[in-house]
């Protein structure tokens, strides 16, 4: 791995390859076609994949919507959606954030109005989602929508599955600072969604959303990826001759020490999870430290390459090890913003762990 951007088909190929070995849904129970691994086994799997430089698993299907469908979806939804998620036949995107609802997600405004009609009951969805990662590839999107505008913020929200091919769905790319097309706006204009695509009960969507956020957090720390990137940092720094500089060597050592501590903290959380205590606010510790470490490594890699990291496109320019390190540094600033910003994670720690 050297920060290469993969195309949709390359991601799908990896997902299919894993699926053929029975590893397509590392966290899935056997009844849905998963390996039925314990959290510890999952952790080992993640770490080995990362160490081998395997592509990251795109989480929106297998790790996000699938557990919600397993826990709260009906039999028909489970049969319709899960097999195509694990086999990579259908690509999923996440429809949570809106322009006015980021950290304050519960203030979301995308409206789904239930209509009774001859062709069957359906929702009419209007609104806009944003920061939709890889939404340009998506066949389906799971959305938090407001079904009861009168109810208090969290109460009137539902969890809806929307076919991206439906008339009225528009995906627009968002240009970002790294020049990579990763995030999108998704617009809904009178989009007709059959009521069969409601997961669980109407107006209970917030409960499912919280379940989703608290689920599948064994990999939130990204320890395996961080170990691999640390090794890459050391290679780059050695090639550029920077490990001989005491200051630089100390910075690499500091991030390595932070990672050693995080690995053990992560294992403690997994061990607690294994003892059937559901992962709780500890996930916020893992998210903050994990993202800080990955960002620090990206920063040091760029620094190690120095001015060689600056050329924007480096096909045949400068040393190979420096390719896209500047762009990679920019891209990873997202880590402390998305998935609940690190400030929100600190609020959670203050409130849920410290009781402040």
């Amino acid at each position: 791995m050297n920060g290469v951007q993969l195309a949709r088909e390359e991601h799908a190929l990896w997902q299919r390859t894993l699926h053929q070995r029975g590893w397509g849904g590392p966290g899935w129970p056997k009844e849905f076609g998963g390996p039925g691994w314990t959290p510890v086994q999952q952790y080992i799997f993640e770490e080995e994949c990362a160490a081998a430089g395997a592509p990251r698993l795109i989480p929106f299907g297998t790790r996000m919507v699938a557990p919600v469908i397993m826990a709260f979806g009906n039999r028909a939804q489970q049969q319709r959606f899960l097999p195509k998620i694990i086999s990579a036949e259908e690509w999923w995107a996440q429809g949570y954030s809106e322009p006015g609802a980021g950290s304050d997600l519960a203030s979301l405004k995308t409206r789904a109005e239930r209509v009774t009609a001859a062709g069957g009951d359906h929702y009419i969805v209007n609104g806009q989602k944003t920061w939709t990662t890889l939404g340009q590839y998506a066949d389906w999107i799971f959305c938090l929508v407001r079904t009861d505008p009168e109810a208090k913020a969290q109460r009137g929200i539902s969890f809806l599955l929307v076919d991206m091919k439906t008339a009225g769905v528009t995906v627009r790319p968002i240009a970002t600072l790294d020049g990579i097309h990763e995030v999108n706006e998704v617009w809904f204009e009178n989009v007709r969604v059959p009521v069969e695509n409601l997961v669980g009960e109407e107006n209970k969507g917030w409960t499912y959303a919280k379940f989703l956020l608290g689920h599948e957090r064994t990999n939130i720390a990204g320890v395996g990826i961080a170990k691999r990137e640390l090794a890459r940092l050391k290679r780059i720094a050695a090639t550029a001759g920077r490990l001989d500089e005491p200051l630089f060597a100390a910075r690499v050592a500091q991030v390595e020490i932070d990672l050693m501590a995080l690995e053990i903290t992560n294992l403690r959380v997994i061990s607690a999870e294994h003892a059937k205590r559901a992962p709780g606010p500890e996930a916020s510790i893992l998210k903050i430290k994990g993202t800080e470490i990955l960002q620090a490594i990206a920063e040091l890699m760029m620094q190690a390459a120095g001015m060689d990291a600056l050329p924007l496109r480096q096909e045949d320019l400068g040393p190979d090890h420096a390719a896209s390190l500047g762009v990679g540094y920019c891209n990873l600033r997202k880590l402390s913003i998305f998935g609940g910003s690190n400030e929100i994670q600190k609020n959670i720690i203050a409130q849920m762990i410290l009781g402040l």
Partner: protein
Amino acid sequence: MDFNLDEGQRALADTVRRFVARDYGFEKRRAIRDSASGWSRESWQALADLGVLALNIDETHGGLGYGPLETGLVMNAFGAGLLLEPYLAAAVIAPALLCRLATADVQAEWLPRIATGAAIVVLAHFEPGAHRAATRIDTLATRKGDGYAVNGHKAVVAHGGAADQLLVSARLDDGRVAVFLVASGDAGVSRRDYPTLDGQRAADIVLNDAAATKIDAGETQAEAQDAIEAALDVGLAALCFEAVGIMEATLAATTEYLKTRRQFGQPIGRFQALQHRMADMLLHLEQARSMSYLAARRCTEAAKNSRQHALSAAKVTIGQACRHIAQNAVQLHGAMGMTDELIVSHWFKRLTAIEMNFGDTDSHLQRFVELTRTS
């Protein structure tokens, strides 16, 4: 110490700030960035008309004979607009080097043309993998007829593609460093021009028996090397002012965003955690501003060790401020801070590049330790 600007200095700063606000808006800059050359000859001419290209050239050569502080005020005013033209390379560093090293004839030939914008002259000094070592020069110059032929490779030369003439550092047969003028259109010059992370342009330049004119009569051992370092130090001081200008703009825009972005029923600027973050950014900015003044005062000092001691202190403070303010400005803007649409992400990238240019924070921290030890 008097930190108040005099009337002329204030007028200069206002003039340039007005130019940036009126003639160098964000959308115009975007169009310039995306153009084939990546900079605008029209804007360059406008800068010439304002007189700022003549700032670092003495009056006998058609210049204004100003110093590092005035140059800093101009660079500071450019900061918010993220100017893409080769001002630092061609109007600060090149004249600084020519004034220090070139013969009277060479000065008389080139300085007036630089002052009017008629010629763009750029120093091509650093070599691949050696951007933190100003003394590592492998490019060779050998005698050929009346002049010289140079052979070598210069890497990530800021605005190398825009240059009409290159000031190339190279070693003579006896190992001494000298500086040569090389026409960028010479058959022995091949330039690969490319955009860098911050939207500016740089070039890798390969010299293959390029026809060269030695600019100095220099007989002493280290004269040219010292002049190159002195010119780069003048450039570093100017860069510090650009950084402060960008950080001022970044802080102001982030403050404004915190006042207008609402979450949880209130402007996010009401949250104390974010207020303290902004306060920390302000502390960085003020320390950086102080060090930019120090850099301006000390960058023309003749004694190299004490000059570079001061400049390293300035670059460390400013580099740390660049990193801190850039990262936090993006973070406080949330995902909006990552978008190409907002100028904050462009300030972020330029601040990132400035931190790496002229030696990064760690290099200067290390040099500061070494110079403290030897002084």
